[in-house]
C-alpha cells in the first residue's frame, strides 16, 4: 500500500514558484523569438530525419546536433548496461518527447497506443500496430515486427506522463510479454535554473508542451541505462512487470505506486472541473489547488458519502474528502480499499446486527482474483476505461460479455478436444 497521494505525481502549473514566473516575464520576448526561429530549424531537422535512414550514423550526428540547437540535449549514463541486441526498451514517461530523446541515441520505434491520424503517427516516429483491434492483435503485430526488423521498440508502460519526482504509475503488462528480456532506461528531464518550467502539466496538450521545449534555452534529458532484466521462468508477466517497475523506481529514488493512467485521467478531470472556483487573479502566481473556502462544505459532502457507505466512520470520510474534495473519488477510494478503515455498525439494523467479515472461502477467492489479472492466464474481463456516456459503457459491457462467452466456449472445446 502506498502512502503517496495521487496529486503529488503530477504538476498542475507550469511554474512552481512565483520567482520563476517573475524571471520568465523578462525572458518572454527572447523566448518567443527563440521559439519562432526554432520552429523553422525544426522543420529542417524533421525533413532530414525523414530523408536519412534510421540506422545511418550520419543521421545520428546530424540530428543530435540539430536537436541541441532546438533545445533538446540528451545525455547518456550507464552505457555499460546498454545492450544493443535488446528488442524491447521500457522507459518512464515524463514528457511528450521522451521517445524522440531515446530515438536520438538509440534508434527505435514507438508502438502507437493512441488513436492518432496515420500521417501524424508517421511524422512522430510512431508506428500503428493495430491497437484498435485489441491487445492480443497489438502484441502479435509487435512480436512479428520485432522478428523481422533491426529496430527495437520503445514503450512507456506507465501509459501517461508524471512529473518524475515522486512516483511511477503502475506499469501495464503487455510490453513485458513481448520478449524475455527488456532494457530499462530511466529518463530525467531538467531545465536550467530560472527556467524551471514543468515539462508537462496535468491536462496539457502536446503543442503547449512542445512550445515550452522551444521557448526555454534548453532542456536536458538524462537517460540512464539499467542492467537488462530477464524474466525468470517461475515468474509470471505480472510479477516481472512489478519487478521492473520497482527497480526503475529505486533508480530514480521514487515510489512505485499502484495508480494507473486511468486514475490520472480521473484526477485531471477533477482538477480541471475544480479550477473555476479559484479567483482568476491568483491563477498565474499560485499552484492551482483550491483553497478550503472555495470548495463546498466538507461536512455536507461527507454526509452524502455516509449515505452511500453507511459502514465507514465519518472521520475517515472527512479526512479523505479533505484531500480528494470529490465525492466520487472518495467513494472509489473507499470501495477499492485505498483508504483503510474499521467498519462501524449501522444503526438502522436490528440490534444484533454485527458487521461481518467475509467468510474464509470468499476471502481466499478474493485473494486469488486480485493476484492475477495478467493477460494470458485468465480471461480478464476488465475494461480499459469506464465510459463517460451510458452508450459507451453499454457497448463496452456488451463487448466484454461476448468476449467472456467466446473465451469460455473456446476453452471448453480445447479441454474436451472438440473440433
Amino acid at each position, binding site marked *: 500500500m502506498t502512502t503517496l497521494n495521487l496529486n503529488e505525481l503530477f504538476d498542475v502549473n507550469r511554474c512552481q514558484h512565483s520567482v520563476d514566473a517573475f524571471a520568465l516575464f523578462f525572458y518572454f520576448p527572447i523566448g518567443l523569438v527563440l521559439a519562432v526561429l526554432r520552429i523553422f530549424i525544426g522543420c529542417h531537422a524533421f525533413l532530414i530525419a525523414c530523408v536519412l535512414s534510421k540506422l545511418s550514423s550520419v543521421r545520428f550526428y546530424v540530428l543530435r546536433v540539430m536537436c541541441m540547437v532546438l533545445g533538446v540535449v540528451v545525455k547518456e549514463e550507464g552505457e555499460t548496461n546498454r545492450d544493443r541486441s535488446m528488442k524491447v526498451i521500457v522507459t518512464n514517461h515524463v514528457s511528450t518527447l521522451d521517445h524522440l530523446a531515446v530515438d536520438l541515441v538509440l534508434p527505435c520505434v514507438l508502438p502507437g497506443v493512441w488513436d492518432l491520424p496515420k500521417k501524424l503517427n508517421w511524422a512522430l516516429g510512431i508506428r500503428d500496430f493495430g491497437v484498435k483491434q485489441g491487445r492480443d492483435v497489438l502484441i502479435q503485430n509487435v512480436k512479428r515486427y520485432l522478428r523481422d526488423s533491426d529496430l527495437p521498440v520503445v514503450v512507456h508502460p506507465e501509459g501517461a506522463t508524471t512529473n518524475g519526482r515522486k512516483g511511477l504509475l503502475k506499469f501495464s503488462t503487455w510490453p513485458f510479454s513481448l520478449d524475455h528480456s527488456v532494457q530499462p532506461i530511466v529518463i530525467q528531464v531538467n531545465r536550467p535554473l530560472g527556467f524551471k518550467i514543468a515539462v508537462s502539466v496535468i491536462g496539457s496538450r502536446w503543442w503547449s508542451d512542445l512550445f515550452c521545449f522551444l521557448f526555454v534555452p534548453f532542456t536536458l534529458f538524462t537517460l540512464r541505462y539499467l542492467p537488462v532484466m530477464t524474466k525468470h521462468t517461475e515468474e509470471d508477466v505480472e510479477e516481472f512487470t512489478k519487478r521492473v517497475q520497482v527497480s526503475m523506481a529505486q533508480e530514480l529514488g521514487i515510489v512505485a505506486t499502484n495508480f494507473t493512467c486511468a486514475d490520472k485521467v480521473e484526477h485531471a478531470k477533477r482538477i480541471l472541473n475544480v479550477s473555476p472556483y479559484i479567483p482568476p487573479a491568483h491563477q498565474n502566481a499560485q499552484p492551482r489547488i483550491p483553497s478550503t473556502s472555495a470548495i463546498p462544505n466538507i461536512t455536507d459532502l461527507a454526509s*452524502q458519502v455516509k449515505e*452511500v457507505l453507511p459502514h465507514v466512520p465519518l472521520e475517515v470520510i472527512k479526512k479523505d474528502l479533505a484531500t480528494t474534495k470529490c465525492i466520487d473519488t472518495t467513494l472509489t477510494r473507499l470501495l477499492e480499499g485505498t483508504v483503510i478503515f474499521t467498519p462501524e455498525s449501522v444503526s438502522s439494523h436490528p440490534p444484533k446486527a454485527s458487521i461481518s467479515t467475509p*467468510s474464509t472461502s470468499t476471502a481466499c477467492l478474493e485473494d486469488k482474483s486480485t493476484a492475477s489479472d495478467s493477460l494470458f492466464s485468465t480471461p480478464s474481463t476488465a475494461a480499459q476505461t469506464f465510459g463517460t456516456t451510458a452508450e459507451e459503457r453499454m457497448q463496452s459491457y456488451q463487448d466484454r460479455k461476448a468476449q467472456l462467452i467466446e473465451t469460455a466456449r473456446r476453452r471448453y472445446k480445447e479441454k474436451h478436444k472438440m473440433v
Partner: protein
Amino acid sequence: MARSALRRLMAEYKQLTLNPPEGIIAGPVCEENFFEWEALIMGPEGTCFEGGVFPAKLIFPPDYPLSPPKMQFTCEMFHPNIYPDGRVCISILHAPGEDPMGYESSAERWSPVQSVEKILLSVISMLAEPNDESGANVDAAKMWREDREQFNKITDRLVRKSLGLAPA
C-alpha cells in the same frame, strides 16, 4: 434514499468494470433502470460447473445498500442452494433480521459492508462447495449427497447449454 443507492450502484459498477474479479461480469441491463443488473458468472475451475458461463439477474431495492439485492439465475440451474426457479439461497443475500431457513449464522449476512462483488464471489464459492443442509432444491441436494456421478452429468449438460454447445 434512491439517490444514494444510485450513487453507490454507479460506484460499484465502475469498480466492477475496471477491476472485476476473475470470470465475473456485472452491470445494469439498461442504464435507464439502474436497479436491475445482469451478471455473468463463470463456473469455478476444478468443480462440476467448470467452464460454464451462467447468466443471472440482480434486483436492487431502493434503500440499497441497507437492504440486500435479490439474485436469480436466468438459465437452467441444478444446485442444492438454487431454487428450481433460479433464485439463489445464500446467507449474504439475507439481512440479519430475516432467516427463512433458520440455520444461518448471522456472521455471513448482508450488511452495507458487502457489495455486488462480494455477493458474486460468494455465489462462485457456493457453486464450488454446495451447502447440502439448505434445501432450496431438495432433489439436487439429495443427488449431490447420494449420486454424485449423476449430478455431474446434469451439471455438464448445463455447462454445455450455457455455452450454446450441443449436448455430448
